[in-house]
C-alpha cells in the first residue's frame, strides 16, 4: 500500500501545499489547484507507483488554460437507438478493432462504435508502426506480458488480414564504452529473466558491415531480429473490416455522451449522438478518453495523462539510408529518465523513412497540431543514428496523442465499481504490438461473463481471412495486365507518386466501412501519401468520389462533415470534363 503521508510530504515540498492526496477505495486521489500542466503532471507522477494497480486519479483543478471538451460529431440521428448488443466496444482504434474481431468468433451480438469519421483516427493512426520485442520492458507489467505474446501473433494475423508486415529487426545502439559491461549483463538478464529470447549483442565491426549508413561513433548495440514494422492504421482498418465481415455491427461518427447505471453499478444504457444503446457488457477501449468513459460509469479509478508524439515521414527516395529500425541511446546519469525511448529511425512498411516520435505531456487530448520543435528534437537525435537522415527529405509530419496512465502500464480488468464495464485502458507503446494478444484475453473475459447470462457458442463459420484492395503496383506485369483486362480502370493511374489506379480507388469506395472521403481513401490505399502530398491527385480523387457517390463535388469532404473542400461552382460553373 502506498504511503500517503510520505507522498503528501513530497507534494508539499514541491508544490507548497497546493495539492492534497487521499487514499480511498484503492485510489490515490489528488486534489487542489495548479496553474501549469507540467506541475499537474509532475504531482500525479510523483504520487504514482510504476505498474501498481493502486492508481492515481487526477482531480487537480488545472487553471492555466481551458481544457477543450471532447469533440463530438455534428451528426444526430437514431441509427443505433434501441440496439441491445451483448457487447458494446467503445473505440475504433487498434484495441477496439482487435477486440471486436476476436469477439466476432462467438455467436453473440457485438457492436463497435467510434466517434471519429473513420477508424484509427487517434493514436493508432499516428503510430510509428513498430512491432516491438519488449527489450525495454521488465517482467511483471502487462505491457511486457502482452508485447511478448503479441509479437509472435503478427505473422499469421497480417497474413490473414492481407496487411503488409515485415520483420526488419531493430537496433538499440550505444556510443559510450562504459555502458559495455552493464549492457552485456542487461541482455543476459532480459534473455533469461524476462524472456526476450532473440536479443544479440553486436559490436562496432559487425554493425558497420551490416549497416554502413549508421553513424561511425556507434560502438556497440543490441539487435533484436524479431522486431518488425506494420502499417498501424492499415491493420486497424483490416481488423474492423474482418470483424464486420464476421457479423460485428460497426458505427462511425458515434460518440458516447453519457451512461445510465443501476443501483448495482451496472451500465443499463449508453447514450450517443445517434441514439441509446442497451448493451449487456461494455468494453472501454476509448484511448485518451478512457477515463472520461469510466467516469460516465462512475468507475474512474485511473487517470489518463495525454502525451503527444510527432513522427516525420521522408520521401521514399531516401529509403536506402536505412532498412531496419534503429535508435541511439545516450545514457546521462545526471538526468532523470523521461517516458520515451526517444523514438527512432525506421524504414516503414511502405519504404518511407520515419523519424520519431518525441514525447510531450499535454492537457489537450485531441491536440494533434504539430510544432517545429518536435521535428528539430527528432532530427537532432536521429542524425546520431544515421547522419544522412535529413529534414530536407521530409514530405509530411503528424502528431498523435498517447493515452498512458500515471502508472505507465495497461489497465485490463473488469470495473471496480461498474460490474459490466471491461477496461482496456492506458494503452500506449507497445500497444500496437500487444493488441492482438490482449484482445484474446479480453475475448475470454467477455465470453465467460456473457456465458453467465446466456449460453455462448463459437460460430460454425468464422472467416479470419480478409482481402484488401489489390495493389497493382506490386504485381508482376502479367498479373497486372490480367487485372487491367478485367477492369480497365486498373490501368488509369490517378496518384502518380504512389502509383494508385482509378480501379483501386473505386474498389476502396466499394468496401465495407469505407467513408467516401479523401482521407479515408488515402488511409486505405495511399493516394496522396507520396511526395506531392495530393497536389496532383486530390482534385481527381474528389471527382471520383463525387461520381461514385452521385453527389456534387462541393459535397465531397476531406474527413469530417465540416471539412469542406470546395464551396460550390465558380461563376462559369462546372465543366463536364
Amino acid at each position: 500500500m502506498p504511503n500517503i503521508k510520505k507522498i503528501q510530504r513530497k507534494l508539499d515540498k514541491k508544490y507548497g501545499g497546493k495539492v492534497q492526496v487521499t487514499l480511498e477505495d484503492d485510489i490515490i486521489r489528488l486534489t487542489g489547484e495548479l496553474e501549469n500542466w507540467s506541475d499537474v503532471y509532475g504531482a500525479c507522477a510523483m504520487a504514482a507507483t510504476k505498474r501498481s494497480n493502486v492508481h492515481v486519479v487526477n482531480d487537480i483543478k488545472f487553471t492555466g488554460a481551458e481544457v477543450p471538451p471532447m469533440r463530438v460529431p455534428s451528426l444526430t440521428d437514431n441509427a443505433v437507438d434501441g440496439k441491445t448488443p451483448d457487447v458494446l466496444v467503445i473505440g475504433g482504434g487498434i484495441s477496439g478493432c482487435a477486440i471486436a474481431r476476436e469477439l466476432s468468433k462467438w455467436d453473440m451480438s457485438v457492436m463497435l462504435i467510434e466517434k471519429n469519421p473513420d477508424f484509427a483516427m487517434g493514436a493508432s493512426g499516428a503510430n510509428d508502426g513498430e512491432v516491438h520485442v519488449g527489450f525495454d520492458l521488465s517482467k511483471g507489467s502487462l505491457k511486457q506480458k502482452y508485447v511478448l505474446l503479441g509479437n509472435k501473433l503478427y505473422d499469421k494475423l497480417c497474413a490473414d488480414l492481407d496487411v503488409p508486415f515485415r520483420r526488419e529487426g531493430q537496433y538499440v545502439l550505444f556510443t559510450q564504452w562504459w555502458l559495455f559491461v552493464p549492457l552485456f549483463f542487461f541482455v543476459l538478464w532480459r534473455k533469461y529473466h524476462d524472456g526476450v529470447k532473440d536479443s544479440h549483442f553486436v559490436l562496432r565491426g559487425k554493425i558497420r558491415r551490416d549497416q554502413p549508413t549508421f553513424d561511425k561513433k556507434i560502438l556497440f548495440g543490441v539487435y533484436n531480429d524479431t522486431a518488425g514494422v506494420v502499417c498501424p492504421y492499415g491493420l486497424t482498418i483490416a481488423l474492423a473490416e474482418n470483424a464486420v465481415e464476421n457479423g460485428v455491427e460497426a458505427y462511425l461518427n458515434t460518440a458516447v455522451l453519457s451512461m445510465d447505471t443501476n443501483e448495482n453499478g451496472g451500465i443499463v444504457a449508453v447514450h450517443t449522438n445517434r441514439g441509446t444503446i442497451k448493451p449487456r457488457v461494455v468494453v472501454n477501449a476509448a484511448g485518451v478518453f478512457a477515463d472520461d468513459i469510466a467516469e460516465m460509469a462512475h468507475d474512474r479509478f485511473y487517470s489518463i495523462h495525454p502525451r503527444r508524439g510527432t513522427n516525420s515521414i521522408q520521401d521514399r527516395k531516401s529509403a536506402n539510408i536505412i532498412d531496419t529500425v534503429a535508435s541511439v541511446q545516450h545514457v546521462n546519469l545526471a538526468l532523470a529518465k523521461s517516458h520515451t525511448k526517444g523514438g527512432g529511425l525506421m524504414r516503414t512498411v511502405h519504404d518511407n523513412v520515419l523519424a520519431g516520435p518525441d514525447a510531450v505531456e499535454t492537457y489537450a487530448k485531441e491536440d494533434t497540431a504539430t510544432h517545429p520543435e518536435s521535428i528539430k528534437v527528432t532530427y537532432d537525435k536521429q542524425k546520431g543514428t544515421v547522419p544522412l537522415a535529413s529534414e530536407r527529405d521530409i514530405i509530411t509530419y503528424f502528431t498523435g496523442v498517447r493515452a498512458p496512465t500515471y502508472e505507465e502500464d495497461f489497465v485490463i480488468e473488469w470495473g471496480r465499481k461498474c460490474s459490466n464495464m471491461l477496461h482496456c485502458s492506458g494503452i500506449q507503446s507497445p500497444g500496437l504490438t500487444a493488441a492482438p494478444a490482449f484482445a484474446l484475453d479480453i475475448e475470454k473475459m467477455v465470453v465467460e461473463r456473457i456465458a453467465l447470462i446466456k449460453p455462448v457458442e463459437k460460430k460454425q463459420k468464422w472467416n479470419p481471412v480478409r482481402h484488401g484492395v489489390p495493389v497493382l503496383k506490386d504485381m508482376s506485369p502479367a498479373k497486372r495486365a490480367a487485372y487491367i483486362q478485367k477492369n480497365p480502370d486498373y490501368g488509369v493511374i490517378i496518384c502518380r507518386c504512389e502509383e494508385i489506379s482509378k480501379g483501386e480507388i473505386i474498389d476502396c469506395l466499394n468496401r465495407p466501412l469505407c467513408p467516401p472521403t479523401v482521407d479515408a481513401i488515402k488511409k486505405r490505399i495511399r493516394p496522396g501519401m507520396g511526395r506531392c502530398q495530393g497536389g496532383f491527385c486530390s482534385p481527381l480523387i474528389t471527382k471520383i468520389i463525387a461520381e461514385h457517390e452521385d453527389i456534387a463535388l462541393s459535397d465531397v469532404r476531406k474527413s469530417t462533415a465540416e471539412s469542406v473542400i470546395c464551396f460550390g461552382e465558380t461563376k462559369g460553373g462546372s465543366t463536364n470534363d
Partner: protein
Amino acid sequence: MIKTCDVLVIGGGPAGLAAAISAHKEGARVVLVEREARLGGILKQCIHDGFGLVRFNEKLSGPEYAERFIDEFRELGIESKLLTFVTSLERIPEGFKATLVSRDGVEVYETKTVILATGCRERTSKQVFIHGTRPAGIFTAGTAQHFTNLLGQLPTKRCVILGSGDIGLIMARRLTLEGAEVVGVYEVKPTPSGLTRNIHQCLNDYNIPLHLSHTVTRVFGQDRLTAVEIAEVDDHMKPISGTEEIIDCDALILSVGLIPENEIAETLDVQIDPRTKGPICDAHLMTTVPGIFSCGNALHVNDLVDYVSESGETAGKYAAHFAIGTDRVPVEIHPNENILYIVPQRIDLSEDNHETVVYFRSKEVFEKATFRIVADGKTLFEKRYTFLKPPEMEKVVVDFASFNIRANTAIRAEVEVEGQ
C-alpha cells in the same frame, strides 16, 4: 509483344510536344506518352493570357498556346499514348526498355533514346515547414487552379496566399475575379519570386497587398482551415518573435516553389544538379546517361513557356541525332558565384555549337551587370544588363565554335557586377 521506337517522349505538356515534333522532323520514329487524357500538360488549366509573347509575338492563353503544338503534332501523325503511365525505365544494350500501363494493359517499348519532359511539381506546406493542424483548405496554387479552372469549383471564399511565385500571383487575380477575397500575398524573401509583370497585373491592379519578408508560421482549424498565423522574418528568413498576427481565412494557398520531377531519371542514375534540381545536361540537353535527354520544367524551372518549348525542340532534335549515333565529347561550363544556375551545364564538341542557346539566372538582384562566357581566358560572349533578377530567367545565344574548344578547355560563365 515488344514495340520499338527511336525516341520515347515522357510527358505531353509543352516540352514533350515540342520535343516530339522536333524529333519527328529529324526523321526519328517517335512515341509520346502522356498520363492524362488530353495533351497540353499544365497549360490546360492556365486560362490566363501572356503565353507565346516571345515565340509567336502574341498573347495567348495556355490552352491556345498548347493547341498550336497539339495541332502540329496531330498533323504530323506522331504516335501518342494517352492515359498511359510509365512504371519503369531500364537500360538495355539497345537503349532503354520502358514499361507502360494504360487501360489496354501493360506494354513494353524498346527505345534508343528517352526524352524526359515530366515537368515539375509544387512544393507543399510541409516542405516549407508549416505547422499546426491538418484541416481541409490548404492547397498548392496549382491544385487550387485545377479546382477552379478545370473542375469549376471555388476552393476558397477568403484566403491568404503564401509565396509570390507566378502561379500564386495568377491565382490571386483568378480567385478575386471569382468573388473570393484574397487577404494578401506573403513572401518570405525580401524580393518577389514571380515576374514583375505579374506583380503589376495580378496584385497591384486588384489592390491585393504584397507583404515581403513575411511568412505563414502556423495554421488553425480542425475541419476546415479557420485562420493562419503570419510573422515577419529576419535576414535569415526566420520568424521574428513578437511580430505574429492571426488572420481569419478559410484557405491557405501556397506558391512556394516548383521542383523538377526527375524520379524516373534517378532510377537510371542520371546525375542531378543540386542548383537546378534537374539533370546535368550538355548543350543538346542530353543528361549524364547517354541517350536520356531532358527538357522543359523537368530540366529546370522556367518562367516562360516559350523557353520550355525551345528546350523541347533542342532535346528532340539531338535525341533524334543520337538515335543515329555519334561520339560525344562533353566539356563543362563552370558558373561563377553570382550565377544561380546555368543550363546547359556542358557542351558537346561532336555537335555544331555555332548557335548554342544558354539560359541562366543570377543569384541575387544585380544592377548593371555583365554576363560573359570565357574559354581559356578568352571572352566568347559578353552582354550587359541593367538588371538581373533571379525570378527572370535570361536567355543568350553563344557561338562556341568561334573558339577552338578542346576537351580540356576551361569554360567559365561569369556575371560581373559593376562596383562589386
